[in-house]
């Protein structure tokens, strides 16, 4: 079983396609991680400063969950087109996206984890590939990091020696 972290970004789509190209026909689980609203609030400068009644947290979470499920289902469809025998799952992010991916990989006893080298976290990630970095650091199984097509192209260009790319 291969676990593929998927956030619906074009980089994540490219990661599925490239992974399918290499590993196709294997069973795969496309995983979308979503963030419960209380977690978002706890990490924003606003804190819990919203007036009661303005936001219905349960409603927001239901919307987030169904959005994540749609994303994951789309990702699984793309994975099937890319050759995988794919299913999908969603998971809530209680600590970090990377931890949620690692937990699922553990639960599914996955042989490998696929992540794009850049995606989006709940609040757009500032760090390039913070999720892939964290997954790699903490995984006790094979991790496949797929660079986004734009990044890969730039790195192939002969005029920019790879040593100068970060």
């Amino acid at each position, binding site marked *: 079983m291969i676990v593929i972290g998927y956030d619906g970004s074009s980089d994540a789509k490219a990661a599925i396609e490239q992974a399918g190209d*290499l590993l196709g026909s294997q069973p795969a689980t496309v995983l979308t991680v979503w963030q419960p609203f209380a977690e978002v609030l706890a990490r924003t400068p606003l804190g819990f400063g919203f007036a009661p009644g303005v936001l219905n947290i349960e409603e927001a979470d239901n919307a987030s969950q169904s959005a994540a499920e749609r994303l994951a289902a789309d990702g699984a469809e793309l994975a099937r087109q890319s050759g995988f025998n794919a299913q999908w799952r969603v998971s809530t992010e209680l600590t970090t996206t990377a931890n949620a991916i690692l937990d699922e990989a553990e639960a599914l006893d996955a042989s490998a984890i696929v992540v794009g080298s850049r995606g989006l976290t709940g609040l757009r990630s500032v760090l390039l590939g913070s999720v892939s970095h964290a997954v790699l650091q903490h995984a006790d199984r094979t991790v496949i*990091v797929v660079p986004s097509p734009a990044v890969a192209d730039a790195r192939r260009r002969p005029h920019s*020696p790879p040593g100068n790319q970060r």
Partner: protein
Amino acid sequence: MFKKIVWATDGSDSADKALDVAKALAEHTGGELVAVHCEELTLPGKGGGTYPVAANEQELKAKIRRQVSELSGNGITATMETTRARVGGAAPAIAGAASAHESDAIVVGTRGHTPIGGLLVGSVTQRLLHISPCPVIAVPTREHDGEA
């Protein structure tokens, strides 16, 4: 489509773990395997001389050559490529070789020769993620018992 898999090896046990995955991938895709080894050289001293950083560089190379001929014996198209770089320059050298070969993936161990604790990922592997033109498949030394 025909695949080219780069197996980045420094001759360590960690690289050997990665070889299992590289081999499985080459078999799965019916592709070709290129063993890329970077010989790191010390900075030149006063006399201008420079030496391999690994004192057993010749042994490491011989080991990799043996592994490559074993692969060929198992019906996998495999070649060996040795590059040279100044100390610390292994990752760009490997990425450069992957670019030149238009490889579809680089398979690498997460540790290398310097096992500093079980949690840290080796600097060459870490750096490869930032500069690789193709997917990097990082294989841990203590592989989880799962199906490949």
